[in-house]
């Protein structure tokens, strides 16, 4: 699922959703529905939180009726510390390794995949932690595009504008949260979705700064087939990003209107961004 979503029901086994909520009372019904749906799909579900295992399981028991028919291992609780570590800031690569291990374990145990959710508000409350956490989101997005991991990342509205800087890094977001999204394509390309104009210029530049080519990838490909509008501010930002990137940056499926603007700007055809990557 790519783009704004109205309901968790639109999600599959490889989705990465940002869900913004008011407080836990607002989040829990979504969590309950999300996990019930996952269990019906034959997925292992895991809830992450800052509490200890006992508290987490009790909390989860209140929102998901695990019943007696479900084996205990179908529903897991994981502490933030176990997945995100105690290091400050978090180590994105290490976090994704843990997600991968948990997903592989679920598959080995006979599940169709892993579905996780967490209210991560407290993990990003401090501005100095946001860059590293955003990179975690990008890696999680990349991982879920290729593996049977579906995640619903809960952010509380109290974070204010900071919410959008994380929302735009998910393939699926609650409608109206962000005008654009940076998502992962299943072939490794970075997809751009939505409208990129001056109003979201700062957010787009910040999102670009957080994207890093995957290790060992000889190039970074942007898929622009889902770009509905892109003005010259965004194009120049993309050009600057490509100029500074340590690997060649390519763009594919560039809308004709974007190419025309690039030509007017003297970026032939897209400046430091090469066309290709099909």
């Amino acid at each position, binding site marked *: 699922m790519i783009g704004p979503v109205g309901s968790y029901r639109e999600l599959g086994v490889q989705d990465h959703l940002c869900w913004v909520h008011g407080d836990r009372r607002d989040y829990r019904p979504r969590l309950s529905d999300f996990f019930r749906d996952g269990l019906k799909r034959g997925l292992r579900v895991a809830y992450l939180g800052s509490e200890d295992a006992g508290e987490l399981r009790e909390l989860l028991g209140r929102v998901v009726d695990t019943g007696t028919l479900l084996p205990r291992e179908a529903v897991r609780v994981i502490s933030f510390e176990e997945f995100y570590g105690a290091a400050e800031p978090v180590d994105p690569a290490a976090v994704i390794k843990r997600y991968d291990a948990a997903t592989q374990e679920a598959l080995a145990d006979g599940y169709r995949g892993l579905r996780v959710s967490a209210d991560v508000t407290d993990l990003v409350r401090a501005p100095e932690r946001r860059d590293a956490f955003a990179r975690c989101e990008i890696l999680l997005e990349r991982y879920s595009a290729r593996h049977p991991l579906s995640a619903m990342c809960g952010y509380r509205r109290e974070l204010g504008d900071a919410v959008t800087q994380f929302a735009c890094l998910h393939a699926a977001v609650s409608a109206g949260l962000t*005008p654009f999204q940076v998502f992962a394509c299943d072939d490794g390309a970075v997809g751009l979705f939505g*409208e990129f*104009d*001056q*109003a979201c210029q700062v957010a787009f530049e910040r999102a670009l700064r957080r994207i890093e080519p995957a290790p060992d990838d000889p190039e970074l490909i942007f898929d622009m087939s889902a770009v509905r*509008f892109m*003005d*010259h*501010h965004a194009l*120049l*930002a993309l050009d600057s990003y490509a100029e500074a990137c340590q690997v060649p940056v390519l763009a594919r499926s560039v809308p*004709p*209107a974007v190419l*025309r*603007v690039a030509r*007017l*700007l003297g970026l032939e055809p897209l400046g430091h961004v090469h066309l290709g990557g099909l």
Partner: protein
Amino acid sequence: MRTGAARGHAGHFHEAGFYGSDTEFRALIVPFAEEGIAAGEPVIIGYDSRKNALVRSWLTDPSAVTFPADSNVYATPARAIAAYRRLFELHVAQGAGQIRITGELPHPGNGGRFDGWDRYEAAVNTVWQDFPVWGLCLYDTATSPTTVLDAAERTHPRIVSPSGARRANGRFQQVADFEALPPVPDPLEQTTPMIELVDRSAAEARRALVQIGGGRVAGTILDYLLLGVSEAVSNAQIHGRAPATVRIWAVPDRIVISVHDQGRGPADPLVGLVPAASNAATLGLGLWLIHQLDIDVALRHADDGFTVRLRGGTTIG
């Protein structure tokens, strides 16, 4: 090394001439071109096909003159400035000591529209200063409207007469003082717009435009209008004074958009005609960009604020 009347002049030697007959036209253009050919200077001549044919017949070696084949050069003032800059760069790189250029701008007397070309005439006094250009702008007094002739007098520091006499022009206005002609109102602007948005985002303006304008004009024109309205709304919100009001009118094959705010608008008289360096954050680059598109862009400064008007479609009145 520059020759002729421009000898010793640095930058753009901008001159106007007024003629009322083919004989006077010949008296103005032939010495200009022949002198340039004799000096081995690039000579560029751009008139309508009838006048170009006349000039060819008058010159001793018309093959030594460039008659630009691309009539699209004069599609918009900003594009003409950019296209000629590229041409001048090329000639200078090839060693030209002076480039002579003469032509006629679009106006109602020759079947075109003069909207924006008065600003062009004012701007080229500045924006071609980097080049050894002698620009001779000839105006036909029999066909040019009074407003066009008036603008021509206010934008050329020098005037040459068919007799060959040259004088400094006392009516010339420096670029910073130039009073541009107000854009001619579009008849649609006198009617009730299909939508009016007050203090709404550029994204909402684009959505409204797609909803109203989809299918009325070619897709590329709609794309250009989307860019234009987006840039104009962003500028109004960032640099203007609230409220920012977007109005959209649409009829088959034609769309008119106005974006108005209560601010004074950009102070730079050249805004939109030249790119403001390479800084994307500046107001100038976006306005320059939309002036390069195949849509009509007009800037209107008035007591009640600043308006960017965009028009796209096959028939622009």
